[in-house]
Structure formats: structure tokens, C-alpha cells
């Protein structure tokens, strides 16, 4: 399967409720650039799953496809919750998860390195992982890592 982990783009600093923080105008541009990059590379059918936080949902909206909101992806999501929401590794096809740091970075450290690290992911950046079996071994391939400043 293809698993795309996408961190929400730049958001406003202040809101009484963290879950209601909105993207800044720079964040909206970052989201639309990343969405354009994704749409050129994703298969025609993919699942899009977002954290319920407004900044994540607004980022996901840039793709223009139906969004499934998953409460377990809210800030503080565990690697286990993220991996379960994606259906990794059995899911066929491509799944895009829009979430938060350090949650996505912890899931990445576990998926790629089998470790406890907290990998850095810039705002609006995308990590694209695939799994495959080679010589009887399950492998995870990092197919792409891009951040808005490199798009």
C-alpha cells in the first residue's frame, strides 16, 4: 500500500480552542501547493483521512476529495492509532492521513526505523511510504519526502 502522511500547513497561533485554529494565508498556499503535487502522483482512487482539528481539515480540503474525519488522529494521536486509521500494512491502494506533530513523526520513526524517535516533519510537508515484500522480507520504502519550500 501507499501511505502518505501529511502534516497540516501553517496555522494561526491563537485561538481559544486549539482544535479551532485556522490556516494562515501562507498555510493555505502551502496546502494547495502540496495538494497539487499529490494529485499529480496519487492513483485516481485514494482515501483521505484527517484529524478533526480545523487546521488539518483545511489542509485536507485542498485536495478537493471527500474527507473522512477520524477522531483518533486529533493532536496527541499515538503511532498505533495513526497506523490503525491508515489500515497499514494490509490496506490496498493509497491512504492520505492529515495530522499533527509530534504524532506523525513518532509514527514515521516506528514505521521506517522500528524505533521510538520523533522525526521532524515541517508544516505542510508530505512523507510518502510504500510497503513491499522482497526476498521474503517485508520492506518499507520511503518514496518521497517533500516540504512546501521544496515544491
Amino acid at each position, binding site marked *: 500500500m501507499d501511505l502518505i502522511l501529511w502534516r497540516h500547513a501553517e496555522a494561526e497561533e491563537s485561538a481559544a480552542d486549539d482544535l479551532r485554529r485556522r490556516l494562515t494565508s501562507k498555510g493555505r498556499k502551502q496546502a494547495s501547493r502540496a495538494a497539487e503535487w499529490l494529485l499529480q502522483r496519487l492513483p485516481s482512487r485514494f482515501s483521505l483521512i484527517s484529524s478533526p482539528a480545523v487546521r488539518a481539515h483545511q489542509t485536507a480540503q485542498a485536495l478537493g476529495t471527500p474527507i473522512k474525519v477520524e477522531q483518533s488522529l486529533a493532536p496527541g494521536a499515538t503511532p498505533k492509532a495513526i497506523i490503525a486509521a491508515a489500515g497499514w500494512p494490509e490496506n490496498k491502494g493509497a491512504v492520505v492521513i492529515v495530522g499533527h506533530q509530534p504524532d506523525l513523526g513518532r509514527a514515521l520513526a516506528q514505521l521506517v*526505523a522500528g524505533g521510538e524517535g520523533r522525526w521532524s516533519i515541517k508544516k505542510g510537508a508530505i512523507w510518502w511510504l510504500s510497503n513491499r515484500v522482497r526476498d521474503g522480507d517485508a*520492506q518499507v520504502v520511503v518514496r518521497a519526502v517533500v516540504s512546501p519550500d521544496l515544491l
Partner: protein
Amino acid sequence: MELILWRHADAEDGAHDMARRLTPKGLEQAAAMAKWLRAHLPGEYTLLASPAVRAQQTAAALGPPITERALAPGASAAAIVKAAQRHRGIVIVVGHMPDLGRAAAELVADARTEWSIEKGALWWLAGDAPARIKAVVSPEML
């Protein structure tokens, strides 16, 4: 330091491993990656390459490389890091698998394993160990 680990592009089969040349597809991959690098590299950088022909040809798509014998197939992660650390700023290392994948695993996760880097792809790492993965780009994803 910023370290870009760049695996040689698609190469012909051949009896003499060091003399294997890029296929036409490999030449296209190298050219496409070099174009991406030119668009995203800030000015100065050092380009190091394994003496194997397929690595030399891949590097040449970007510019004339400094040939490093220590980067030949079978290079240890330590040898790759040592070769890069002789230079300042951004260092691009054009080399082989599993060598580059071992260097990436060691620098990012302090892990003695080999991560998969596809033919022609690059991993852009920033900072000392533990390094941050700044970008991963492969010819298929350009």
C-alpha cells in the same frame, strides 16, 4: 552539514561491475534528478562520486565530480560519512546500495540496518547525527 545521498541511476548488467554503464533510462533519470537538484541547491556544494562508471555518469549529469575511491561498492557507513566530512556545506555523495541505505539508517536512526533507496533517488539529510530527513526524491516521483 547537509549530506545528499544519491544512488546511481539504472545501469546495464555486465561482467565488470565497475565498468557498468547507465541505460538510456538511467541517463534520463540522472538528468531529471540533476535538474531538480539545480533548482533546489543553494549555490555552492561539493559533488563526490564512487569510481564506478554508473556513479560517475550519474554525477556527471549535475557536474564534474570529485572521485572518491572510498565510495566504491561496499563502502561502509563510516567511510561514506568520513569522505563527506572532509568538506564543508552541502556534500552530495553518489554511490551504491546497500552502502548508502546503511549510512542513512545510521545517521538518522543510529540503526545498523539498511534502508531502501531506489535507483536514481536521493536522500537529503541535514544536521549531525541524528540527522533530519529534509527531502527524499526519486525519478518516478519527480
